[in-house]
Every structure is written in structure tokens, then in C-alpha cells.
């Protein structure tokens, strides 16, 4: 007999309260009429209205999305290549260093990654005259570099758990290696590639520290804008902005989760039906 684990369930309740109370409190105070962010002064949506009139915020959102789309796409391409190289090519020159290079950015503290990137850009500007100013390009390069390794990790682990017999079967049937890659391997790992892209996108659109060091005048992304505001303290307009961001992300994550669960359920049903049909 399994007893109801009362202790564990109360821990879960406490844990989730810990997770969500600060966020709910912030959402609550975004509807505060008072300018004092933590003292309730009546209900109002004035802070939301002011956000949409603020060009600075809108420009920062646009820049963040542009950087995140570009860097996530390039990071996915580079990261997938690295993942395939590590999972499928047993031997090539410099493999050990390559696998080290792929894991190191994951452990490197962000401050150090940011400063070292900035130093590189400043040195390059002096040696070869590029980049003459910092902004979209430098931030995108920095984001690609540290988010591609996350893609690599995901793709690599998917590839190592994939049944290699499918690839061998395709080879035996006369497919060239390139054909095997495009027709067999890539379709199988496509969910991993998509997950990698999503992760790279989130990392990029959320990043403060590395962006802070690699950006320049005119390159204010949304997190950098929020960063410069929150350093001064809690304000109701940041509460409103945070509420909007958290709502968008929350709805997105929940919707993706439900879709994935449905797809899983459908696949399981299909497999069961196939098994039943064969029996």
C-alpha cells in the first residue's frame, strides 16, 4: 500500500508558493494607482497606458527581438553542426579541444564572457578597424557564441540516443553520407533542433550581463533598459512592463507544453494502433 506522502505534498505547496508569490505580488502592484510602488493606493491601469506611449521601450523591444531572432537562428545552425560533429564523427583532428570549447562557455561566469568579448572587440577595432562601434552586430556575435553551445548539448544528446541502425540501413540501401544526413538524421533530430532554437532565443532575449558589456550607444535592448531602470529601485511602470513580459512568456510556455503533450499522446496512440494492427 502507498501512503499519501503528506510531508512531500506540503513541501510542494510551500515550494510553489515560494516560486509564485513574488511574481503575483509584482503583478498585483502593477495595477497600483500610487507612485509608491509598494504601498497600495487604489486600482489603476495608467502605467500600462504610459508604456505603450514610450518610444524608448518600443525601440528596445524591437532591437531585442531582432537580435534574438538573428542570434538564435545562427546559433542553431552552428550548434547543430557542432552537435553532429561530436556525436557522429568519432575521430577528427582537435576533437578533444573542440569538445572542451563546446562545454566551456556553459560554465564560464557571464561576467567573464562579457568582459573577454568586449576586450576582443576593442582589440579588433584597434588591429583591423572592425567593429568601429558596438551595437547590434557585436551583441549578436556574443549571443551566438554562448547560446550555440546549449544547442550543441541538446542536439548531441538527441543524436546519441537515436538508433544508429536507421542510418546504417539508409547507407546499406545505397544512400550517400550527405543524403543520409539530410534525409534521415536531420528529420529525426528536428525536435531537438527546434528546442535548441527556442532555448537560444530565450537566452538571447533575456540576457543582461553579456549584452551590457558588448553593447554600445544606441544598442539598448529591453533587458538593458530594464536593468538601467531597476538599478534605481522599484517603480510601478517596471511592474507593468514585467507583468506584460511574464504574461506573454507564460502563455507561450503553457501553450507549447500543451501542444507537445498532445503530440506525445497522439504518437503513443499511433504506436499502439500500429502494434494492434500488426498483431
Amino acid at each position: 500500500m502507498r501512503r499519501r506522502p503528506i510531508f512531500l505534498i506540503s513541501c510542494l505547496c510551500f515550494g510553489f508558493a515560494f516560486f509564485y508569490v513574488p511574481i503575483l505580488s509584482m503583478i498585483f502592484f502593477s495595477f497600483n494607482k500610487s507612485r509608491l510602488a509598494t504601498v497600495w493606493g487604489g486600482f489603476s491601469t495608467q502605467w500600462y497606458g504610459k508604456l505603450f506611449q514610450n518610444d524608448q521601450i518600443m525601440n528596445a523591444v524591437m532591437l531585442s527581438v531582432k537580435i534574438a531572432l538573428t542570434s538564435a537562428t545562427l546559433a542553431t545552425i552552428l550548434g547543430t553542426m557542432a552537435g553532429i560533429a561530436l556525436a557522429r564523427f568519432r575521430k577528427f583532428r582537435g576533437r578533444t579541444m573542440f569538445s572542451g570549447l563546446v562545454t566551456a562557455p556553459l560554465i564560464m561566469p557571464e561576467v567573464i564572457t562579457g568582459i573577454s568579448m568586449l576586450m576582443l572587440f576593442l582589440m579588433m577595432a584597434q588591429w583591423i578597424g572592425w567593429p568601429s562601434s558596438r551595437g547590434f552586430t557585436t551583441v549578436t556575435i556574443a549571443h551566438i557564441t554562448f547560446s550555440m553551445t546549449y544547442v550543441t548539448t541538446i542536439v548531441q544528446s538527441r543524436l546519441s540516443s537515436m538508433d544508429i541502425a536507421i542510418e546504417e540501413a539508409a547507407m546499406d540501401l545505397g544512400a550517400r553520407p550527405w543524403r543520409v544526413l539530410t534525409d534521415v538524421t536531420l528529420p529525426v533530430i528536428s525536435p531537438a533542433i527546434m528546442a535548441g532554437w527556442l532555448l537560444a532565443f530565450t537566452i538571447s532575449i533575456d540576457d543582461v550581463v553579456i549584452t551590457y558589456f558588448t553593447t554600445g550607444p544606441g544598442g539598448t535592448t529591453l533587458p538593458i533598459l530594464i536593468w538601467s531602470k531597476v538599478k534605481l529601485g522599484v517603480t510601478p511602470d517596471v511592474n507593468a512592463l514585467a507583468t506584460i513580459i511574464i504574461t506573454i512568456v507564460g502563455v507561450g510556455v503553457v501553450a507549447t507544453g500543451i501542444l507537445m503533450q498532445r503530440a506525445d499522446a497522439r504518437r503513443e496512440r499511433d504506436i499502439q494502433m500500429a502494434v494492434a494492427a500488426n498483431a
Partner: protein
Amino acid sequence: MAGGTQQLVAWFHRKGWRDIIVAVPYVWLVTFFLLPFFIVVAMSLARRADLSPPIAFLESWPYVRFSNFARLFEDSLYIRAYLTSIWNAAIATFFCLLIGYPMALGITRVSKTWRNVLLMLVILPFWTSFLLRVYAWMGLLGSNSWFNKGLTAIINALLPGDIVLKSLPMMNSNFAVVLVMVYSYLPFMILPLYANLEKLDFTLNEAAMDLGSRPWQVFKDVTLPLSLPGIIAGGLLVFIPASGELIIPTLVGDARDPMIGRVISDEFASARDWPMASTVAVALLFMLVVPTMVYSYFENRAQHAGEAGK
């Protein structure tokens, strides 16, 4: 022309696509990760100068100097910052484990539908902005907030009558740093622990109970030892980023007792002492090498165990 194209296609099929797949990410990482890293190491051996960029190497052999590293030990600011970082990160890791372990175990004990819902609730804050989650705590810790007032009231009720606190000085303290770190990094602890605990065979627990073990004994003798890889993975996933953290100490931390990430950033941006910033960074990396090696050792062992089990 056609022959050339065909040759190219043949080369591509024979070997070329392979070389390209390896070389492109390789070159990228060498240029934008390894090279900057070497610049930092080189700079830690230089000295500050009024140039642009503000560094200079010695003019004669051996061109480099190690006095920056000596300064790490001479100036108590650095040693204190390292100790504060390690201490804060270690306490945060401990509390993440203390809160995260029962949560992860609890998730494995509920029905499948609930499991998915709860996992989603763990992952959700992980996808939302890190900065905004830290910010949410700024609203709670301040002395005017309902949270601070409520806690103060509780503590006043517990304290003997003659002492009355007005509010708790939680903001800008190491307490706030650890609290927000636990909050921000808890999913990193729960997820690997869950992945590990989920795979454990529940029949082992039943066997132990049939043999007369009490629930606590079952946990201590069966579940806990088997979940050690999950504990180590989760612990390092919390400890490593927490020790180099910059955002949390800047927003809720005590400026007089900075963590190492803040010291690096200040040396670089405010003091414009690039060599010293680089030195502190290199020393931090050295400090992180040991836990990282422990992590990869256990990771490899887990992988081999997994392959052997197949």
C-alpha cells in the same frame, strides 16, 4: 566548368561536408571564445597604463609580471570577495537542495497528469526573465512592502514585549543575495534531481518496507544514496553560476561586502583597471575548475553506467 562542379560535388560527398560541419563551429568558437579567453589571460600579466586600451606589458624580458596575482593576496578586498562569493553560493546551494529535494521527490509521487502540470510550473519561472524575477524580490524585501511588514509583525509577536522592530533590514544584505539566489536557481536543482529520482525503481522501496524499514529509513538507506548523482549535478548547476553572479548582488546585495562578479565588473568599468579585472577573473576560473572537474567526472560515470545498462 561542368567537370569542375562535378569534382567539387565529388569532394563534397567524399569528405567536404564533414570538414565543413567540423570547421565552421570550430573556427567560430576559437575566434569568439578561445581568443578572448587568451586575451584575458594575457592581460592579467600586464599592467595598467594611460593608453587606449589602458594596458601595457613590460618593455623587456620577461614582458609579463605576476604582481597582479600577488595583489590578490595583499589586498583584503579580493580575498573577502572570494570568500563572500563561495559562502553565499554554498549556502544557496544547500538551501536549494533542502527545498528542491522534497519537491522533486514529491513530483515523482503524484499521478502522471499532475506530474506534467507541476513540471511545467517548475520550468515556467525558468523561462521568464531572470532579471524580472530578481526584480520581483526587490518589491518584497524593501522595508515598506507587505512582505517585510508581515514578517516584522510575526517576529515582533515572537520577541519579548519590550523589543519592537519597525522593519527588517533585509534589502542590500547577504541574506537577500542568498534568498534571491535560492529563488532564481531552484529550478536548476529540481530538474536534474527529478530526472534522477524518476528513474529509480520504486520496487526497491517496497522491498525495504516489506523487510520492515520505516519510511525515513527507506529514504536514508535506499533513495538518498541512489540519488547522489542527481544531487551532485543539481548542486553544481546551482553553485557554479551562483558564485560568479553579478545581477543579484548588484540589485539586492550589500555594496560594502561585494561578491567577486561585482569586483570584476567594477575593476573593469569604474576603475578602468583591465589587468586587475582580468586577474580576478582568471583566479575565479581557477576556483571553478575543481567543481567542474568533479561534475564532468560524475557525468561521465553516469553516462558509462547508462551505456552499460543498455
